[in-house]
């Protein structure tokens, strides 16, 4: 046990090392993250392309959000951003729902002690595998397998099996609906293993005695799932939901690369693609930084709201625990006061 004097010496003489150890992180983070973020914020109030240096106030925001503003194409700008936001939401929703249902089902199965499943480890390894493959390669892989003509694997196989006519290949890449469904499928393919393992560790954190007790009371596995697993899994589910939403806002590689030819496909344009396309247009000093910046700040605001929800929920537990402790201490104090007859 350190005496008060010892701990005072410790805090006096070693505090500077604490700052030294954390300094590199903060220096690099400010230089490469905070300043670019502030700079993006500044750029969102400046013009686009040739008017890069011009200060335009909220013009970019009003063009993107409401389709009103100085430029003649303002309505088009708004339309494109709204479509990108819509696509982002549709693609996220379309991959999150099947992904969470599949992962939850698999996680429950894999953690069920009664089910005898051989090769559990192997299944986990294979199902997680897509997650580590480069997203750019995944896009290339699926474009090459699901090409739009009879010269590609999936269409050719479907024709041979007689599901579709040779003259009528499915437009997996160019078709507006089919390409969206494909991106949802690929996203699910990429992420269900990861979500499954996260949920599994959550389920394994639930005390087995709860399941045993439910078994003895005669609850079947469906009842156990809805009455025990799901309620106790809620924190980790919320965490998965929020991280997936923030990840969904960032969805870039796959929608950007899932196309034929040189240009990305507009029907898959997400907000991240919109931002990237705008600040990458033309030469580096002539790009549309204003629109890119304004869209980034909008995304930042959405992320901040989502992030603070999780932050609040994580902090809540500690706060509640502390409050309880404080109340308990107060009660004890009061009891002592009564006993000793002390009064303030």
């Amino acid at each position: 046990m350190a005496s008060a004097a010892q701990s005072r010496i410790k805090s006096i003489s070693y505090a500077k090392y604490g700052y030294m150890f954390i300094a590199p992180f903060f220096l690099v983070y400010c230089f490469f993250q905070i300043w670019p973020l502030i700079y993006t914020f500044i750029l969102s109030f400046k013009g686009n392309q040739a008017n890069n240096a011009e200060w335009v106030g909220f013009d970019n925001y009003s063009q993107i959000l409401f389709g009103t503003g100085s430029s003649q194409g303002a309505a088009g700008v708004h339309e494109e951003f709204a479509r990108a936001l819509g696509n982002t939401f549709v693609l996220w929703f379309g991959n999150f729902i099947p992904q969470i249902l599949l992962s939850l089902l698999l996680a429950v199965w894999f953690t069920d002690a009664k089910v005898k499943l051989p090769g559990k480890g192997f299944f986990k390894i294979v199902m997680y595998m897509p997650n580590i493959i480069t997203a750019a390669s995944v896009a290339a892989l699926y474009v090459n397998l699901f090409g739009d003509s009879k010269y590609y694997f999936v269409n050719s196989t479907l024709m041979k099996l007689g599901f579709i006519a040779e003259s009528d290949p499915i437009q997996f890449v160019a078709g507006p609906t089919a390409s969206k469904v494909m991106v949802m499928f690929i996203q699910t393919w990429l992420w269900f293993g990861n979500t499954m393992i996260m949920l599994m560790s959550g389920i394994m954190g639930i005390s087995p005695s709860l399941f045993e007790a439910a078994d003895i009371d005669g609850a079947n596995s469906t009842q156990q799932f809805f009455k025990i697993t799901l309620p106790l899994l809620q924190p980790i589910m919320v965490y998965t939901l929020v991280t997936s939403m923030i990840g969904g806002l960032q969805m870039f590689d796959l929608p950007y690369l899932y196309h034929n030819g040189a240009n990305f496909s507009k029907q898959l344009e997400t907000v991240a693609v919109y931002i990237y396309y705008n600040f990458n247009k033309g030469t580096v000093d002539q790009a549309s930084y204003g629109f890119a910046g304004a869209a980034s700040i909008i995304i930042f605001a959405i992320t901040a709201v989502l992030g603070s929800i999780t932050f609040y929920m994580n902090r809540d537990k500690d706060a509640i625990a502390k409050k309880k402790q404080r109340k308990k201490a107060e009660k004890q104090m009061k009891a002592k006061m009564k006993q000793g007859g002390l009064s303030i």
Partner: protein
Amino acid sequence: MSTKSQYGEVKDDYHKKIMAKSIAILVVCIILTLICLVPIYILIVNSTHSSNDLAQNPSRFFFGTHLGDNLKTLMNNLPADASKTAKRVAAQYSSTFSVGKGYLNSLIIAGCSTLLTVFFSAMTAYGLTVYEFKLNSAAYTFIIGVMMIPVQVSSAGFVRFMYSLKLINSFIPLIVPAIAAPAVIFFMVSYMKSSFPLEIVEAARIDGCTEFRTFVTIAIPMMKPAIAVQAIFAFVSNWNNYYTQNMILKNADYSTVPIMVSKVLAFDKNIDNGVNYLCVTLSILPIVVVYFILSKFIIAGVALGGVKE
């Protein structure tokens, strides 16, 4: 007698139910395994067929004999009597997808970033857990707060800033920012809190060890498990990071593997499907091989992240 048989029946029924459920689950798992593996298998199979064979019959399930030819095209190592078209195809692919250069660039970027990430994150975590100072909890709250900010949000300013610093086509904007990895720090702080006894630092101090040396020679070896897990994830995510790399590296000499794949995908003439498949195969090969070697470790790491966060 009747009660006995009744119990037997119940038990058999229960067993049968469990068996049926297990088999159903097994079937679903096998189907999912196939969905995960078949695309990769077809990819590898198709990279061993020539473009002509694939045009005649694109649905091939077994290995062909043209892997060598495809490799020669990709390396631009055709025989002298090859046709003009073949030479044009070979020139196009070899100039865009130069395997060695791509691997090397990706390896430099991913390797250096990983080293910086784990070293400096361990250092920051050490600073936050071992020392008591005024801004300690404020710094930790800040790190948790910024953990979820997506890269896209600051990328417009980042590119413009790097451009003004003349760091376009440089590895510096891809490697140095790796020093600041809030999520890794968060993981390492929670690891240190649970399994790093602070008495050891006191003991080292009494023995006259300097603070930095204590960190390098005592803390780092003790944090090996956490460092290894985070190193793998940092390496994979840096190797796969198409977004930032494509933003910064405009010159073909600095192209990394993901950039090369995306360029091959954008070809609209002189396409050779066999070589296309080979490019994709080569791009995923290193990471898949490493994955299967370290898979158990990686799965455990993912599960750990799930519990911690």
